[in-house]
């Protein structure tokens, strides 16, 4: 899961990484209270699970009550890359000397954790210059590696000590919480040469959730996603009007690509998992019935050994129970497809021989 800045900072604080005073709120009343407690000036920061907040106006300086009353609601009402504010963080203003970059991330191709550090922080990682890169195996940072990094960054004295301390704490946090990414950008050198984390990005390995009860409070999951998870499905909600269902992540992604190529707008990505049964397809249709934007359903199942009649039964059951009243465009690869077509004769589910035909029909059918 991807934590919001204030959540990442809660973990940073727990692990002793230096931070400025800050408070998170979800409404202006709460925010006013925090404003009094913190005292002006401070920064108003939108909490969204995407980058690029600053450019989108999601970080505003605030010097007095008038500014607060104006800017708090402004920031709260922003939508950044389709994401609405989850909370607002008020954070004291900092007297910064220099901005650094530091992250520990799971290096997929090298199959180990890797440190990236730079004395030119504060910009997105793609633009960070003079990157110092160190592979660190399972995530432990030795004294040797730590001193190499500070040396290459040109830090010394109190700042070097502060940086090493932060690096080691970040490493401990990464290992213990099973993170895929722990990033502090910017990591600031203050006027008094102390080191402070001004931002925090923290992404954990979802597959390790079951052994991190303490992180569950950070899990953000919609009711539909939760139901999907219980059924062993993968569901990603999108903003189009054609629901895309299939078995296997690669196959569903591929279907999404082809639908988009042909001018269709996917409403969701729904992978029912390797096999397909009457029950799993019925449950998938149940989830889709709860998405009001859906105007049609595109089904692409590669069964191999699955009988298409088994899947056809799910559609019939869904119509019979008035679960859905939507046209379904399906391509079912598997045995007994002639029989399945016969079963669905006269229903709103059409079976096509190829996925291309099903996609074309879906794009046309939803337009009309």
């Amino acid at each position, binding site marked *: 899961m991807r934590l919001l800045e204030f959540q990442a900072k809660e973990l940073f604080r727990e692990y002793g990484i230096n931070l400025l005073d800050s408070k998170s709120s979800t409404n202006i009343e709460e925010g006013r209270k925090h404003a009094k407690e913190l005292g002006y000036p401070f920064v108003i920061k939108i909490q969204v699970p995407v980058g690029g907040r600053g450019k989108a106006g999601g970080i505003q300086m605030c010097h007095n009550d008038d500014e607060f009353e104006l800017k708090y609601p402004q920031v709260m009402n922003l939508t950044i890359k389709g994401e609405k504010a989850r909370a607002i963080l008020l954070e004291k203003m900092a007297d910064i000397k220099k901005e650094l970059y530091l992250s520990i991330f799971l290096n997929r191709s090298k199959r180990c954790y890797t440190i990236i550090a730079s004395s030119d922080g504060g910009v997105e990682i793609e633009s960070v210059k003079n990157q110092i890169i160190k592979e660190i195996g399972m995530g432990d940072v030795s004294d040797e590696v730590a001193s190499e990094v500070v040396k290459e960054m040109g830090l010394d004295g109190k700042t070097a000590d502060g940086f090493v301390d932060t690096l080691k704490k970040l490493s401990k946090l990464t290992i213990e919480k099973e993170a895929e990414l722990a990033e502090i950008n910017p990591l600031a050198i203050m006027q008094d040469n102390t080191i402070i984390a001004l931002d925090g990005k923290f992404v954990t390995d979802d597959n390790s959730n079951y052994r991190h009860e303490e992180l569950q409070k950070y899990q953000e999951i919609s009711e539909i996603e939760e139901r999907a998870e219980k059924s062993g499905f993968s569901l990603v909600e999108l903003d189009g009007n054609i629901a895309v269902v299939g078995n296997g*992540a690669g196959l569903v992604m591929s279907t999404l690509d082809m639908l988009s190529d042909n001018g269709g707008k996917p409403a969701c990505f729904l992978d029912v998992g390797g096999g397909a049964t009457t029950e799993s397809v019925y449950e998938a249709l149940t989830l889709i019935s709860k998405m009001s934007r859906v105007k049609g359903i595109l089904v692409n199942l590669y069964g191999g050994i699955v009988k298409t009649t088994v899947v056809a039964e799910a559609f019939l059951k869904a119509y019979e129970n008035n679960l859905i009243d939507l046209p379904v465009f399906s391509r079912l690869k598997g045995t007994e497809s002639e029989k399945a077509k016969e079963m669905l004769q006269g229903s709103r589910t059409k079976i096509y021989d190829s996925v291309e035909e099903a996609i074309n029909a879906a794009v046309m059918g939803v337009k009309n």
Partner: protein
Amino acid sequence: MTDIFELLKGKPEDSDYMKKGVIVQGITGAYGSIHARHMIRDGTNIVAGVTPGKGGQKFEDSVPIYNTMQEAVDATNAKISIIFVPAKFFLGAAKEALEAGIKLLVAIPEHVPIRDTMKTLELAKQKGAIVIGPNTPGIMIPELIKIGIMPVTPFKAGKIAVLSKSGTLLYEISDSLTSAGFGQSITIGIGGDPINGTRLVDAFEMIKDIPDLEGLVIVGEIGGDSEEILAQRIIDSGFSKPTVAYIAGRAAPKEKRMGHAGAIVMGTYGSAESKITMFNKANIPVAKRPVEVPVLLAGKM
């Protein structure tokens, strides 16, 4: 590197040449038992199963079940195992297999924590063993040996190697290849996780020198940079057999996990464009749709 074909086929002087023994870990589980039955039906020589507490029993009245991997390996001398245990028990099962001397470990479970995979790979490296997966459909030489969960109908023996991150796309594309007259010499499912025991580039090293190889098909998807690294290796190695790629996930939104734990674009890292650009640089055409793969391959012949 261990020769994958020697592991899967053996040498002519071996008593089990072309019939290498495979142990199924988790053979009595719901999933393991179904696929053990399928593998047997499809001709794989399943010599033992392991389920703690069920030692001494027989699976389907013929395959002996042992309590531990050590017992199973001692009794059968098998070098190959396939794991079907719930993700949280994967690390234990994998360690047991590697400690017992397994040299090819096929890891089926999805949702294995990354740290557990990393620990498994560390041990495998020490032991000189190959791990395929986790979250893989398996590995197969069509019509000879299947160690995995794939249906056999899409596949046919032949001379094209297929390497894939995705399971169902592997079936789909192999099916198209078979229909177009391109059989497969070997198919390797890399798996959809962020960390793979056998990366695309490792799989390429395993197959690139097959004497009668006539072509290579790479089925990739968004996430990570293993496609880019493979494309670079193909350029550097001067590999000249006809090669075609397919990349799923062009239309996927950024920063969303698309079903597979590894299928996520972070910034520009893992994007389809980056992979397609690298394949183009390697002079490898990238199909826009799965059905185009055999067409593009024929064009390269």
